[in-house]
């Protein structure tokens, strides 16, 4: 199966070929892959060049005119560079769009810090009402995109080079494994390594590809007794901690947050595996963290 990014591009092309109210807006990134779609639909497949502020504002204008925009580039440029446009031109105007990023926290490790945006979900989380999807498999990415296009939601779909071996197409927190000692929440591409890390431990493993809205009811149902929760997110550590805290506000609980580091600017190049290690997000590091937390 093609990776998430190629799957997204093929699915977006299908959508724009079928639905004449959908537009795709690009800022050079991935434009070559959608050249044929742009030739067929010059008014609805728009490449604004390397202009990310205009990328997002154009989407807002398209929505104002009644179209459904799909907006795509690397997350460092889509969310961080154009954040005021996301905040004002989409959220504040109450205009809908489906933002689809590629790059995740360190999908392009050799490109360095300028191409890394582990804070993207936290930034979107500062705005009310957004759907945030973090698929863990190309089939999930396809399904989440197809589900996001109808209506006029504001949706952020975060694609990654990292993926799990199997898709999980359910909604909310899905129970992958049952245990009694507490629960580990694996977000998107973190699932396979969490399952490996939790091997032999008496814990429930929950999976989600949707972090906003957060499935508070699902979490409450999954940890009826001992509310020990480990949250493993592939972006800034603790991004969803406030959601877990709110969900369990009326019962004593402990929370372990795993995610990309907040305490240091990671300046290494190297591979995905090198970055997993630096952030403690490889299976071995996660196993150590879980053991200490659940047996401590």
């Amino acid at each position, binding site marked *: 199966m093609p990776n998430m990014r190629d799957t997204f591009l093929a699915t977006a092309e299908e959508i724009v070929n079928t639905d004449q109210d959908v*537009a795709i807006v690009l800022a050079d990134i991935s434009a070559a892959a959608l050249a044929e779609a742009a030739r067929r639909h010059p*008014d609805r497949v728009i490449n604004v060049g390397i*202009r990310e*502020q*205009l990328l997002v504002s154009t989407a807002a204008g398209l929505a104002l*005119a009644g179209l459904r925009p799909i907006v795509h580039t690397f997350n460092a440029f889509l969310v961080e560079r154009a954040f005021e*446009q996301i905040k*004002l*031109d989409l959220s504040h*105007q109450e205009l809908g769009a489906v933002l689809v990023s590629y790059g995740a926290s360190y999908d392009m490790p050799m490109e360095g810090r300028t191409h890394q945006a582990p804070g993207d979900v936290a930034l979107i989380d500062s705005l009310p009402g957004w759907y945030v999807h973090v698929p863990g498999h190309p089939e999930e990415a396809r399904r989440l995109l197809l589900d996001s296009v109808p209506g006029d939601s504001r949706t952020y779909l975060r694609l990654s080079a990292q993926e799990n071996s199997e898709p999980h197409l359910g909604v909310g927190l899905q129970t992958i494994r049952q245990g009694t000692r507490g629960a580990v929440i694996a977000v998107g591409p973190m699932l396979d390594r969490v399952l490996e890390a939790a091997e032999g431990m008496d814990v429930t493993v929950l999976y989600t590809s949707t972090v906003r809205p957060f499935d508070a009811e699902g979490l409450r149902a999954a940890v009826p007794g001992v509310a020990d929760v480990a949250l493993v997110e592939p972006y800034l550590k603790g991004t969803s901690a406030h959601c877990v805290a709110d969900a369990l506000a009326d019962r004593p609980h402990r929370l372990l947050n795993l995610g990309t580091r907040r305490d240091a600017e990671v300046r290494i190049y190297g591979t995905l595996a090198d970055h997993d290690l630096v952030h403690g997000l490889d299976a071995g590091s996660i196993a150590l963290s879980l053991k200490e937390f659940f047996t401590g």
Partner: protein
Amino acid sequence: MTTTTHEPGYADLPRLISLMTGDDKHHAAAESTVDVLWVLFDRVLDLGPETARRPGRDRFLLSKGHGPMAYYAVLVAKGWLDEDELAGWSSARSRLGHHPDRVRAPGVEISSGSLGHGLPIAVGAALGLRARRFRSRIVTLVGDAELDEGSNHEAIAVAARLGLGTLTTVVVDNQSSTHGWPGGIARRFETEGWAVRTVSGRDHEALYDAFTTPHPGRPLAVVAVVEPKGAH
């Protein structure tokens, strides 16, 4: 006995503005746009409260959202807002603030305040209305100092390349940009392929002609020159 209903006109605007400013001392930012707004809403745009939701309506995007008194006054004159709302503007009870909010105030096509957003959104609206086969006109109003924001230049460069002939940017030029524009604002737009007209921002006939003379296939920039800021 007959009753005549008075339909407010241009002559009523100073009185309506003074309901917000408290006396006849008009705020420069409000005054600079009043003639441009009046000509657009009175004679140029196919736009009104009766057709507010018509998909093919013309669009007016006030990008320069600060000093919206003239805008609110024109919206009252054209029946979008009630005159009684003006006196209490900017209070917690009012839907009219120092920057307009599209979700709250009728007739307000975009919420503005932070500069450099109206023109880029207008580019998207022009693309969207073209894709939907509407011939609607999209007019956005910016200030000359607002052009300092780089986001405008992303939009200026792309609009003409994409042939957005339904798009008009009116630049109310009160010479308040800190560093200005070499060769003038008009040249900045011309270089990028826009049709450009520079007129007095106080001359209604000249403004009307500038807005309505055809400019096929190219976006239009109207530079409406008014008194320098602070010269009142």
